[in-house]
């Protein structure tokens, strides 16, 4: 054909490709620097006890951040995750008490299984409502989930007249163990909080689903170009509803875990957590315009936020500085990403 002079695929250097080119990589670098600085400045930072606490604390929001990241990849947003955590925890505790009062205990562990199922079903219904409103009714995700935030928090207060509740009954011990136990490790290794194990397992599942299934490609495609995805035959509505359900269920799971650690489900549980969770997702590289985000990024974002909080506590700085610092980091992370993508064109 003798064709020539066409612009070719641009050559990319290794740092402009793949993980190294992602915001997550920069934030991971910042996190490593932060950890080194903190290890040098505070002798308490790298103790087994503190590391175990840090793992436990970021696991409290990181599972919900995984789900929130999915929603953000599709260019959506879910502001109702904090409320969903609370209502799920409340529903779980109430179900456990109700089963206890009814004397329904067919086999050991049944109260635990049924009440957790009831809690997660509650979360699933919230996600279904969000997804339906966004995908089928074409409502804006921000406004829809702002409404859900309020509705669900209101229901949480109504359910217990604002007094909150707590898990009780024959499986209470099992519930506390499964949600908040720490698995003892040999000398020199921090004890593993179970929540951390759940987090890693779910992150692996999410990684496989996003990178190695058609569903994952569809999630990214919807965030990249929803109209194109629709025209090529992707079932956009179904995928969208799916990510909102997964987001709510992941938040619900985190809510149950937090209530296990607290030993109760107060009505204000996880109040305003949605902001921390969305911040963690964004710091970890999820792009609010859609199309970009990973499971690893979500976890990195959560760790960074928790390490900062922990560092401020160890340094005896007023912990209220945390919010201000997290805000600065959000802006800095997005700004660095902007500089970098400006460079690659």
């Amino acid at each position, binding site marked *: 054909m003798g064709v020539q002079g*066409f*612009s070719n695929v641009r050559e990319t250097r290794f740092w402009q490709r793949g993980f190294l080119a992602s915001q997550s990589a920069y934030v991971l670098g910042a996190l490593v620097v932060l950890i080194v600085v903190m290890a040098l400045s505070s002798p308490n930072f790298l103790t087994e006890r503190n590391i175990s606490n840090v793992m436990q604390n970021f696991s409290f929001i990181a599972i919900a951040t995984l789900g929130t990241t999915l929603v953000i990849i599709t260019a959506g947003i879910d502001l109702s995750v904090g409320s969903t955590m609370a209502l799920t925890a409340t529903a779980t505790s109430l179900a456990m008490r109700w089963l206890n009062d009814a004397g329904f205990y067919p086999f050991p562990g049944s109260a635990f299984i049924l009440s957790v199922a009831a809690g997660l079903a509650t979360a699933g219904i919230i996600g279904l409502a969000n997804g339906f409103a966004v995908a089928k009714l074409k409502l804006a995700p921000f406004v829809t989930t702002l409404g859900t935030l309020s509705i669900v928090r209101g229901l949480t207060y109504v359910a217990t007249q604002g007094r909150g509740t707590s898990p009780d009954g024959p499986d209470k011990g099992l519930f506390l163990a499964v949600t908040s136990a720490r698995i003892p490790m040999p000398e020199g290794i921090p004890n593993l909080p179970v929540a951390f194990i759940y987090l890693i397992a779910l992150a692996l599942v999410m990684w496989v689903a996003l990178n190695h299934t*058609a569903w994952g490609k569809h999630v*990214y495609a919807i965030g990249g170009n929803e109209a*194109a995805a629709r025209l090529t*035959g992707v079932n956009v509505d179904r995928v969208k509803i799916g990510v909102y359900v997964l987001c709510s269920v992941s938040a619900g799971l985190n809510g149950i875990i937090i209530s296990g650690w607290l030993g109760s489900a107060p009505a204000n549980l996880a109040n305003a957590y949605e902001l921390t969770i969305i911040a963690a997702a964004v710091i970890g590289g999820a792009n609010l315009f859609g*199309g970009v985000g990973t499971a690893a990024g979500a976890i990195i974002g959560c760790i960074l936020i928790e390490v900062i909080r922990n560092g401020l506590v160890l340094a005896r700085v007023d912990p209220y500085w945390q919010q201000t610092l997290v805000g600065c980091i959000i802006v800095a992370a997005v700004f660095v990403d902007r500089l970098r993508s400006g460079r690659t064109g």
Partner: protein
Amino acid sequence: MNDGSGLAAAPVLALSGISKRFGAVQALTDVDFEVFPGEVVALTGDNGAGKSTLIKVIAGTHAPDAGTIRFDGAEVSINSPRQAAALGIETVYQDLALCDNLDVAANMFLGRETVKGPALLGRLSDLDMERRALEVLKRLNVTTIRNVRSPVAMLSGGQRQSVAISRAVMWNSKVVLLDEPTAALGVAQTHEVLELIKELRAQGLGVVLISHNLHDVFEVADRIAVLRLGRNVATFRRDETTPEEVVAAITGVLETTK
């Protein structure tokens, strides 16, 4: 090769008496339109003439109010893009085509991924898809895209259009509809896409090309159909007409019968 004598005897796609109304707007009135295998038909006309509407009728996005569509000789009704695709009709939309954040192979297989195991949760056969994508690009002489793992965001406009067109023809399609594929492209990239269109014709596909650019039209089309105010006012053989005559038909100075 396509001066009429070498054409297949029967059209692969034949529309007759197609009308379509949107409220008060009669977008198409009694339109006839044919495409033969191995032929490029340009569809041209002024803004609002009904070109996109006609394409959408063929692509299954708009149901016609009246008229019949025959595909491979049999009368069909096309009610969705999926049905059109099942028949072998693919559409390349001008700007709604690709996901920038996915790579070339993922875009070419979007919505029709090859998986091992159950449809949605099965594991993607990345290597199979990569190989097939490369094969298609090679078969179509798209030589400028060597790496199907590059994100589409890295490609030039011409390369993006090539990816969109290659995607359209990789599913055993027989008719490809291109809505202004060169509208946003520079000279070299337009050339690239026109070469690709010639390649599709050489491989026996029927190609419908919407374009306002008569230079492009005269470079690749075998026939030129002109719509004006929703009616087909003229159809020319490329080698029996001149740009002046086509312009006259578009603007309504000349009333040729088809």
